[in-house]
């Protein structure tokens, strides 16, 4: 008589358990991804773009409050405000931001460009300027 380790019903249970384990592992290892450029306008996120894998620099026009508009340039290296019609120009002068936690703020237009990174690893908790 042939000896089997598990009967067919037990095999199906084992298969479900194994499948669940694989899904759980895949989800837990997918991680937070790389650095993302986020643009907030008046407290609401209007743009969120993964920077890793950008083959060429991208530019995005953002309309802010008080007639302020600015151009955001995104690349694998980081993000910057490349142009603005705001007299203040503080955000443009901030230049290229490359590290998670850094930001370029346009107060008159209520627009904030910042970089978001993985929850773990090297990132800034805050910035002083």
């Amino acid at each position, binding site marked *: 008589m042939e000896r089997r380790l598990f009967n067919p019903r037990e095999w199906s249970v084992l298969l479900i358990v194994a499948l669940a384990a694989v899904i759980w592992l895949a989800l837990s290892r997918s991680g937070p991804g790389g650095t993302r450029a986020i643009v*907030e306008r*008046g*407290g609401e996120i209007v743009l969120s773009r993964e920077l890793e894998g950008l083959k060429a620099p991208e530019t995005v026009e953002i309309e802010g409050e008080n007639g302020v508009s600015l151009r955001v340039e995104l690349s694998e290296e*980081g993000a*910057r405000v490349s142009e603005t019609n705001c007299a*203040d120009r*503080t955000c443009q*002068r*901030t*230049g*290229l*931001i*490359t*590290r998670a*936690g*850094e*930001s370029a*703020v346009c*107060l008159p237009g*209520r627009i*904030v460009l910042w970089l978001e990174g993985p929850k*773990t690893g*090297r*990132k*800034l*908790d*805050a*910035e*002083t*300027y």
Partner: protein
Amino acid sequence: MLTDERKARLPLGKRAILLGMVFALLLAGLIIWQFLSREREYELTAFAMGSYVQQTVWGREPETAGAEAVQGIEELEREISWRRDGSVALINSRAGGEPVALSESTAELLAEMRELSDRSGGALDITLGPVTRLWDFDNGPKLPREDELRDALALTGWRELELTPDRAAKLEREGMALDLGAVGKGAACDTALEGYQIYRIRAAVIAVGGSVGLYGQKPGGGDWNVGVRDPKGSGSLGVLNLPGGFVSTSGSYEKYFEQDGRRYCHLLDPRTGYPAESGLVSVTVWCPPGMDVKYPGALSDGLATACFVLGLEDGMELLESYGAEGIFITEDSDITVTKGLEGRFTLGEGG
């Protein structure tokens, strides 16, 4: 007797099921309890005090603590901004007249900042209002006429801010005006951290513009990483690794205008009425935890301005007298770090 007990028992299979159910219930209860009582991380951004406010809060009620912090900052702004209708605006409008009764917190803030004005020899002067209004860096900055600047400068002087023991304040002469713009963002960080304590928050970091408040032990261990803006380039120059406290920076790159080919930065020397020319482009000040002042955040903010005006040597001396630390960056890009920050500041990547 033994036979009766055996009869009362459930069959083995059913007992096992019952036991399994009890364990499952216990486990479910434990998971639910853990979920409800766990500490969460919450990020909140807002615009307050003419600045971008960023908070990351860890605790059981981070949403409430974060929202309360923003509300507290808005109330503080109303109280200490000369543009609003709180105590500072009232002191200004009654200058040369009747004293204004103050809350305990406002009286303490004014007392500590007047002391800083004194100890810095007027490199920070909280009565610079008549001069800052002429330059109007926030709305339409312009180079004032020499005669109007001279007249405005004659209406300044922190020694003429009278603070009485019964918590009232007055400016001695009509036309004088307080301006707490140089310490407001730091004071806002103080307000937020006070709130975190009330809500028993485990850890938090708040940035009001470029002033930063660090509260509690950073989750996951280690020091907080605070980037220091590069005054001449892009992004951060380096990273400060700090256990807590308050950090503020004053830099000539942050706000300026150009007229007739000359650049005018917003950091005014109260002794001349013109932008400070001390050979520095940026000063970052850290007030470590445990300083014996009520407003260490406002102090870090005010010290950064005072040190920028004073220059490297006098600035370092002032910091030492307070037990604060700093990073001085000159126009020639020389970087000087005070002793207490040696090993805590890393150029470049850091972290």
